[in-house]
């Protein structure tokens, strides 16, 4: 099938810039993959999947802690999940 844009007189509006940023291999990939591997996959309240359109989990840092701000579409649970490496009391922000 001949695509419309194959005709020399066809003027197509400029396409959006290709999605190169989300598909390339980057020097920071190992770090990125490590963080992605830690993203919560299930709601801590109801166990529903958070991936896909099941909710959202956004990682942010608070001092040494990585915090996953999470919302579950299934039960509406909203809260922060914190990955803990050491139990320390009275740690400053």
């Amino acid at each position, binding site marked *: 099938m001949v695509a419309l844009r194959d005709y020399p007189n066809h003027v197509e509006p400029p396409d959006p810039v290709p999605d190169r940023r989300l598909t390339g291999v980057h020097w920071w990939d190992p770090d*990125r993959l490590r963080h992605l591997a830690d993203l919560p996959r299930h709601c801590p309240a109801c166990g529903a999947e958070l*991936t896909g359109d099941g909710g*959202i989990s956004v990682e942010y*840092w608070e001092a040494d802690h990585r915090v996953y701000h999470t919302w579950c579409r299934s039960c509406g649970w909203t809260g922060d999940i914190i990955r803990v490496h050491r139990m320390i009391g009275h740690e400053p922000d």
Partner: protein
Amino acid sequence: MLSKEQNEALTRVGPGTPMGELLRRYWYPVAFVRELDEWPIKKVRLLGEDFALWKTPQGGYGIMQERCPHRHASMVYGVVEEGGLRCGYHGWLFDCEGNCTDQPAEPEKSTFKDNVKAQAGKAQALGGMVWVYIGPDPAPELPRFDVYVDEGFKDVGHSMLPCNWLQIMENSVDPHHVEWLHGRYFQFVGEQKGFLAPPAFQKKHVKVGFDPMEWGILKRRVLEGQSEQDDDWAVGHPLVFPYCMRVGGAGIDQMQIRVPIDDTHTWALFYANHHPDGLDEYPDQVYPTDYEYQWIDDQGNFIVDYIEGQDVMAWVTQGDITDRTAEHIGKSDIGVVMLRRMFREQMALVAEGKDPTVGFTREPHDRIELPCEKNKFGAGVDFALAWLEMGSSRYSPALDILKKLHIQAAAARGELPGQHTVDTPGQ
């Protein structure tokens, strides 16, 4: 940090995408009334789709898919008639609902036209702009925010920016950027170029807060030397979901509008209404003053010696669609985190066939007042003049009129320039 799939879901605006479906529940400004008075048809790209927008002889507006359903010639090169928009190629006529009402070359008794329907949206004028809705019926009400309907002198700077709209919106829930981008960085640029950047922009944020509200997210801050009794915290100003932010002070109300053209382009407008206390009448305007603000120079460098130019630099240099799988965000970015969650919640509602619950109304109304600090900037004419000279208004052909208007108002109030300390504009 977000997963790649979440970043995709939050940034893609085309038809059939989760965000695209959410965004199609809202009205967008796509043209100035002035433009369609000068030529009655305009090509419009919105949310990754192309349309022909036209002004009807009766004074209304219509919007339909750009390509004629017949053989795909552009309807932008059509003929405006009382019955709608007629294709310039073979004369097919479409009304404002997308119905094909005439096919002149077909046999007279043919019912072919009854089997053809174009994709059509809704269009109407508000505040000197033409707004369109391209989502499913029934269309919600077009929110008539205070900035668009209040009396005053209206001035609109605009430019097409090569980046995804979400990174601009995330800037609106990031108060800390003010003390750096418009504070320290502005100071540095001033030192290099030989001008004095306003020191008040460098004030440290002591506390920031974000509250969900009917129209979006109310952003609050306490700056060094302030308390929670100050307007900055007590009143704040809102991100207006899903694509605007309301700021103001010193008799200037502004809506910052970010229209998602497609995944990698955003039409960014600064719509300001000037109505300082002390004036009852304003200079005559047939239309709002509209103009393009400059953000890149002849050498391809960003223009960073004014506030909005600094913002544009930060938005665009993140990339066409910033890679959020590789970002490192912290406690100071919790407004951004909250906005992403709000988008995800609203996307889920739409996916379930429901209306969004934020920034959306089906209630007819005359005017919607948004919360916005009034005594934010030490106020006064000095702030207004600084806003005009250090913001995108510096490109306005009405700059002198605006300065005069604010000085006359100050005189009527018994206030003189130089009496106030110019403080931090909200961003």
